[in-house]
């Protein structure tokens, strides 16, 4: 299994600002993903974080709004840019190893935009 640490665990931000969320995995993994979970809802995949290259975004998510970095196998960041109240959500980092299928999740970063 993998232990995933995210920070910040929560934050309150002003409209128009940007926030970067960090994700650290305690072991080398091949796959890292970022999900969003709006209040009372399920998880929606934002993008696949690719090591050393641009992330692969799902429909409805764009790099300008959610830039992602993954400089190595155990670390990734997600930035929520030019925030609006609609961006208030839980952002979850997940990681796994190709071929195993199983994904582990961090505790999430709870973002409130005023």
């Amino acid at each position: 299994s993998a232990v995933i640490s995210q920070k910040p665990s929560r934050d309150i931000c002003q409209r128009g600002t940007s926030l970067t969320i960090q994700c650290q995995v305690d072991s080398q993994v091949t796959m890292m993903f970022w999900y969003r979970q709006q209040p009372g809802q399920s998880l929606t995949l934002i993008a696949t974080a690719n090591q050393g290259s641009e992330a692969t975004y799902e429909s409805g998510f764009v790099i300008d709004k959610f830039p992602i970095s993954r400089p190595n196998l155990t670390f990734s960041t997600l930035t929520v840019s030019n925030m609006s109240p609609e961006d208030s959500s839980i952002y979850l980092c997940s990681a796994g190893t190709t071929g195993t299928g199983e994904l582990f999740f961090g505790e999430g970063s709870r973002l409130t935009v005023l």
Partner: protein
Amino acid sequence: GESVGLHLPTLSVQEGDNSIINCAYSNSASDYFIWYKQESGKGPQFIIDIRSNMDKRQGQRVTVLLNKTVKHLSLQIAATQPGDSAVYFCAENWGANSKLTFGKGITLSVRP
């Protein structure tokens, strides 16, 4: 597009009874399924998984059943305990990229 969905939004059970949580999936190409448990304020926690070449898998107090004919997945929890109260999600995956699609989620409430 194709999606994973759940039949019921909430389930209330008596402590000690067995719980059954159901999930329908629509992507016939899905070959791997996972059940996650999410407690309030926490990230999803892996419970049990099953591959498409199996129809049943058992863990500790939990059993997952897969019916590929009707594209149905279920999670059975034996002797439900208060600590089982949480939101449960089914998720599906196809191919080797580990990218999961999640169902809507169902809240399990255990009555003492």
